[in-house]
């Protein structure tokens, strides 16, 4: 049985030390595309947590029966199945959100975070830790999405989750809502995160090098 310490370790790795977006520069396609509104980012993040955790769980359960050379295909199919669930649920209950996210729901399949976790963690570990690892990675990703979206929505629309925070005196920075704003915001966040953890620098670069 798992100890509490292990669980804590998995979460702190997934959210802080080994954050998929900052440390490994994975899955940033959707990190940039949906972050002009906080609500979109939250939904996207929840979808990703669901897909990552359950596909890690499934892959971990069947890991001993999967032939090695077709495991990528198996993983892709499992991930697609969960993404379809997310897509159908969104279409049924939140059609406006489904429209706003557009193709980016489907693109969760090619989000390298999920594949990366399946390949590097779920393939070697029992189901429960894999499931938690999926949740942790997903939460790390969601946190980044929400941080980017916070600044983009606040500066671009003057609101947070659709509620107006900055009054009409605020000159809306349309720039932040457009694609370049996303690139700059993510670059700044990576810069800040690198500077804060500069003493772990060697560790981080070694990881990034190994990941590519």
């Amino acid at each position, binding site marked *: 049985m798992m100890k509490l310490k292990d669980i804590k370790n998995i979460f702190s790795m997934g959210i802080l030390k080994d954050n998929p977006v900052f440390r490994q*520069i*994975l*899955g*940033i*396609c*959707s990190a*940039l*595309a949906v972050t002009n509104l906080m609500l979109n980012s939250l939904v996207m993040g929840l979808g990703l947590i669901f897909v990552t955790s359950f596909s890690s769980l499934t892959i971990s359960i069947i890991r001993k029966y999967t032939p090695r050379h077709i495991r990528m*295909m198996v993983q*892709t*199919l499992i991930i*697609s*199945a969960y*993404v*379809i669930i997310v*897509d*159908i649920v969104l279409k049924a209950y939140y059609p406006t959100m489904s429209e706003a996210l*557009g*193709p980016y729901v*489907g*693109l969760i*399949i*090619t*989000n*390298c975070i999920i*594949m990366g976790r399946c390949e590097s963690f779920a393939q070697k570990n029992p189901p429960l830790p894999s499931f938690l690892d999926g949740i942790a990675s997903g939460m790390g990703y969601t946190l980044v999405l929400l941080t980017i979206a916070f600044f983009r929505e606040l500066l671009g629309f003057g609101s947070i989750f659709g509620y107006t925070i900055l009054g009409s005196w605020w000159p809306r920075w349309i720039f932040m809502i*457009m*694609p*370049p*704003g*996303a*690139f*700059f915001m*993510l*670059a700044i966040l*990576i*810069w*800040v995160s*690198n*500077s804060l953890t*500069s003493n772990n*620098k060697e560790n981080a670069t070694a990881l*990034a090098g190994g990941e*590519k």
Partner: protein
Amino acid sequence: MPEINPFVIFFAAIFTSNMILSNFLGMCSFIAVSKEIKTSLGLGQAVTFVLTGTTVINYLIYHYLLVPFSLEYLRFIVFIITIAAFVQLVEMIVERYLPNLYYSLGIFLPLITVNCAILGVSLFMVIRSYSFVQSIAFGIGSGLGWTLAIVAMAGIRQKLKKAPIPKGLQGPGITLIITGLMALAFIGFSGIVRIQ
């Protein structure tokens, strides 16, 4: 939207709605591979080729197989299998008949399966309900636009090696900032053609 001219879609896919710069698709390999012009060009060619092929195949499968049986919800799985199979097939054919090309493209082909631009183009094609000719134009245009962006980025990054960059920004950070500047420059094209 059958009234849009395929040429408009073609140019719009290159300039105004560039896959990387305005739709953020294919960023992972964009950042990882854009270190040298030569490799970027190789990857760009491979992406363009695979994009065109898979868009056509996915169009045919979607409209003649999935829609008649109302299986549209299976499109994610079907598209990703098509892409994986197509990439595998291309790899085998190229290896057998064009060994030179295989050695220059070889390492990139497996990477392409997980390139979100490929799946993204197929999904956009469905969402915007393009016709067959429009889909082809969109596929080729997106591939060329992607190539243009990654080659331009590789050119800038080669010069950048000598620049003094703050420590925390080195690597992905500065690449993202340059991408942002490129995206800003490409917004200048937006008055010319528009699709959405």
